[in-house]
């Protein structure tokens, strides 16, 4: 990595370039685009959680005045299984069937048909005119029942993947993942204390404020342009091309500003449908989901059952750990059980462990990525087990974790040896934190837990252009969810040696910049940031060459200092330094406009570890939980924009606390979600939480020019265990299942 000293702008906290337009309402979000002759689309959704679709008749809808197009599953090509789109997508055949049901409706709210009409009202009436014959099937709603040998099958072609031999009978178990090391039996035999438990967590939604929205227009040549809110318009383009069976070159995707995604906007829902409707109608078509549709048909993350057993010696050293995970995939495969298996023991240096995970089909929405997908569910169980061990050993929970903490050189449970990581640094910071040193308030309980996420790198592109006045344009292709344009500006300004204000970063569409994988996996500041730095280095090399030509010296005799070309020490050239503005002004004489570019497949995304702790108070008469204080400590490698790193930590904590205390998908016996709205899907409101205190630990990632580790996902992992352990401390009763809603806590108190 570059010298971490003498940084001028990296690590400062300027206002984000997109901030003013967002707070004044000028920013254009997914639903804000309107076009002449635009039609409004609506989607017909299955009223049954599980049903065979015998017939879809669109003719009455198509005959209505004002209806220009209608589509159903028959209008989309069938895709063979196994075509996989990038990291975020999953199996394209499954994504395609989720976008529009074919032979079966697999959950209540599954898209079955769609129309485009002159108004939303006409479109709604047209939906009523679509005739669908369903053969209603029994819904499979419980993950354990779905795994039973005699369970109703969602997919007769589902043969469990990941077993040593492909089973001869289909089941609802889509995949099995296993990791093991050492001698489990010997490990448990060596333990002085063994704890075990089963922990259940229902589905939870990402809860982004902006519903999915897109507008598509297909011209007479068959070329489509799509505006949408997305975490990755390049991957949306790829998925849409596959699902529609058209060429990538026939699709142009433009990302709007995005009102939250948290992983849930890494996969298409509306875009292929909008393109198909527009193609048939010959007019632009806008599709916007209602909040109810967002809950019923997008997201969520897996509900789970996790069983864990952990043994430790009296000194706190873990001797063996065993876990069994069952994750709900929803109606189609794609549950994050792999990362769940890989993350559960990741913070710890273990000699003996076994973890098995199962991905299970149930008649609920197909799950989508949600911040650190799969890790909160499994790590909640491990962090609760560690809390139980600490209690039995009468050991400080931070000391127990420090005793077993993974460090540089530790072989991760999922294979590689860790490069430098910051887990121990986080634990040490927690031990010294004034909030941890403070007494637990009277009547409250304190909980501690660790968090972790792998982070990814992968492919990114960036271009840097110098305007005629020397101002800098950074063009890249990652939708800005968490302040990434500000981070790109900071890294570009640092590398070029110019002020932050001299740089503007733009998110290009799929035709104006090179491929960037989704804004997800906490990869953007790491991977795209690396591409921006490389493109700036390209600019510097070009500027040095032009200065050398101007001065008549060799380009090796030019150095770049503080945004200017200067003669290298010892070079006898009686010349004035050339700034970016000088070089831009003379560009026509030195070779034309100054451009820099970089593309890469970034390797070495450093894992980010965290320690969180909180003091919670429980009203023992009502079961209500009050969060008195919450502290998040996390390794960011290097915080490019510390305020936005803190924002990620605080936002993840808020979402994790909501998941732990009140959020859940509530189903009736027919598989209909009963709380498909923000009133009864209880995310925390501002007054529910105190200011989340943060401390950024910086153990630089050697693979990034400024030491960056992704920070976006780790923050949601620890809060589930923190809350569970704090409630245990406050009321003296372990509550295994989430959410710890007031009725669940009061029932536990009454049963004690």
């Amino acid at each position: 990595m570059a010298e971490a000293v003498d940084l001028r702008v990296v690590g400062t906290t300027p206002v984000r370039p997109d901030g003013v337009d967002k707070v004044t309402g000028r920013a254009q979000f997914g639903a804000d685009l309107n076009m002449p002759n635009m039609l409004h689309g609506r989607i017909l959704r299955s009223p049954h959680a599980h049903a065979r679709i015998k017939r879809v008749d669109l003719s009455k809808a198509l005959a209505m005045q004002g209806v220009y197009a209608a589509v159903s599953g028959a209008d989309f090509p069938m895709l063979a299984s196994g075509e996989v789109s990038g990291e975020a997508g999953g199996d394209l055949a499954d994504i395609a069937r989720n976008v529009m049901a074919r032979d079966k409706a697999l959950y209540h709210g599954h898209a079955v048909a769609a129309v485009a009409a002159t108004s939303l009202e006409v479109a709604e009436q047209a939906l009523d005119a679509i005739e669908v014959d369903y053969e209603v099937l029994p819904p499979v709603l419980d993950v354990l029942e779905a795994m039973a040998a005699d369970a109703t099958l969602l997919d007769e072609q589902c043969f469990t993947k990941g077993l040593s031999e492909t089973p001869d009978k289909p089941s609802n178990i889509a995949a099995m993942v296993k990791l093991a090391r050492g001698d489990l039996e010997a490990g448990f035999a060596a333990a002085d204390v063994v704890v075990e438990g089963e922990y259940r967590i229902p589905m939870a939604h990402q809860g982004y404020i902006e519903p999915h929205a897109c507008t598509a227009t297909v011209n007479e040549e068959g070329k489509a342009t799509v505006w949408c809110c997305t975490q990755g318009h390049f991957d949306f383009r790829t998925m849409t091309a596959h699902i529609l069976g058209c060429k990538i070159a026939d699709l142009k995707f433009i990302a709007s500003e995005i009102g939250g995604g948290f992983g849930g906007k890494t996969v298409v829902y509306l875009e292929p449908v909008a393109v198909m409707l527009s193609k048939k109608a010959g007019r632009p078509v806008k599709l916007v989901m209602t909040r109810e549709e967002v809950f019923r048909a997008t997201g969520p993350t897996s509900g789970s059952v996790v069983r864990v057993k952990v043994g430790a010696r009296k000194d706190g050293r873990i001797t063996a750990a065993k876990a069994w995970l069952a994750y709900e995939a929803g109606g189609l495969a794609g549950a994050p059980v792999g990362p769940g298996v890989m993350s559960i023991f990741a913070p710890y240096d273990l000699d003996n462990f076994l973890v098995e995970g199962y991905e299970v089909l149930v008649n609920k929405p197909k799950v989508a990525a949600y911040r650190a997908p799969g890790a909160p569910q499994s790590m909640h169980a491990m962090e609760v087990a560690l809390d139980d061990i600490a209690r039995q050993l009468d050991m400080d929970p931070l000391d127990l974790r420090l005793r077993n903490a993974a460090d540089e050189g530790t072989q991760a449970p999922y294979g590689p040896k860790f490069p430098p990581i910051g887990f121990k640094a986080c634990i040490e910071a927690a031990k010294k934190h004034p909030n941890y040193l403070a007494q637990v308030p009277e009547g409250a309980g304190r909980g501690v837990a660790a968090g972790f996420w792998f982070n990814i790198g992968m492919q990114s592109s960036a271009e840097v252009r110098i305007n005629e006045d020397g101002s800098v344009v950074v063009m890249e292709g990652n939708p800005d969810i968490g302040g990434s344009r500000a981070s790109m500006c900071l890294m570009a300004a640092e590398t070029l040696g110019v002020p932050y204000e001299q740089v503007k970063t733009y998110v290009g569409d799929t035709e104006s910049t090179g491929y960037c994988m989704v804004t997800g996996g906490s990869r953007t500041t790491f991977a795209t940031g690396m591409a921006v730095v490389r493109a700036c280095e390209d600019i510097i090399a070009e500027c040095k060459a032009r200065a050398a030509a101007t001065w008549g010296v060799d380009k090796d005799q030019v150095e770049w200092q503080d945004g200017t070309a200067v003669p290298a020490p010892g070079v006898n050239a009686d010349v004035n330094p050339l700034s970016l503005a000088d070089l831009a002004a003379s560009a026509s004489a030195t070779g034309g406009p100054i451009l820099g570019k970089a593309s890469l497949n970034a390797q070495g995304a450093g894992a980010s570890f965290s320690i969180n702790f909180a003091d919670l108070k429980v009203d023992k008469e009502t079961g209500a939980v009050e969060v008195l204080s919450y502290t998040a400590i996390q390794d960011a490698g290097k915080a490019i924009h510390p305020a936005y790193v803190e924002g990620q930590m605080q936002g993840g904590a808020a979402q994790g606390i909501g998941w732990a205390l009140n959020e859940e998908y509530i189903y009736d016996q027919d598989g209909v979600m009963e709380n498909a709205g923000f009133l009864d899907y209880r995310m925390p409101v501002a007054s529910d939480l105190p200011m989340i205190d943060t401390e950024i630990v910086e153990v630089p990632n050697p693979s990034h020019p400024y030491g960056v580790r992704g920070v976006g996902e780790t923050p949601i992992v620890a809060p589930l265990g923190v809350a569970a352990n704090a409630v245990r401390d406050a009321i003296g009763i372990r509550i295994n299942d989430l959410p710890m809603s007031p009725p669940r806590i009061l029932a536990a108190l009454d049963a004690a």
Partner: protein
Amino acid sequence: MGEFAYVAPTSVADALDVLREHANNGRRAQMLAGGTDLLVQMRGLDKAPRTIVDVKKIEEANRLDIGSDEIYIGAAIPSAALNENAALKALLPGLIEAADLIGSTQIQGRATLGGNLCNASPAADTTPAMIVNRGVCVIASGGGNRELPVEAFCTGVGVNALADGEFLLGLKFPHPAARTGDAYLRFIPRTEMDIAVAGCGVSVTLDADGRCVDAAVGIGAVAPTPLKVEAAAEALIGTKVDDDALAAAGAACTAAASPITDKRGTVEYRRKVVAVLCRRTGAIARDRALGAS
């Protein structure tokens, strides 16, 4: 949103004419005060055409009188105006607290007591608070105004006692006696922006020795309609509203409740929590009554 016509009559007589004319022609008319429930319903499940009859231009629906015998609150007065009325807040603090629990600041600029009552939700926060303050509905009717106690107004979930051609004009409350205090508490899993899982209003009047001479207890979200719980009031009358009396009143609330299990809470939970709320609300009402003496 469904199709609708809009009229804003300026007198009770004109409003009744509109309602009568619609009834005679089999057309649907619906009263609009703040619209915080109605507009949501029109955008959601109930998109059938209708005529919206705005009561906000009618003087009697906007009048606020604080008399020495009686307090009159027009059905169309937004709760923000009530919340900011210091005199009203001093007289009926529990009722105003209940109104202030509903909605955000923006919503409170529209939301009304009358609308909250007419919507007839079992969980309406102001209804138990109005019940314990002996609220009486003033109903505009073809035969002249008629009156009905608030506890008799809601007849089922989303159903009220208004006949075709009638509308709610305002609410009357007797001026609270000396040494009277009221309070309302609800339980929600969040701190705001939520709907009561259980609610309880209590009003007590004490004598000079602090002994309860009159009481009323109202509960919400634990039965198809908000209820006035006479047995809970009786448990308080004659006592000093001490812990034992409050526990007895709470037990009476639990006994009176007939809740359901739904996404907001279980039967067992609601029965328990309504008693907790009764104890806590009763203690606040008592302290207010003592402070007022």
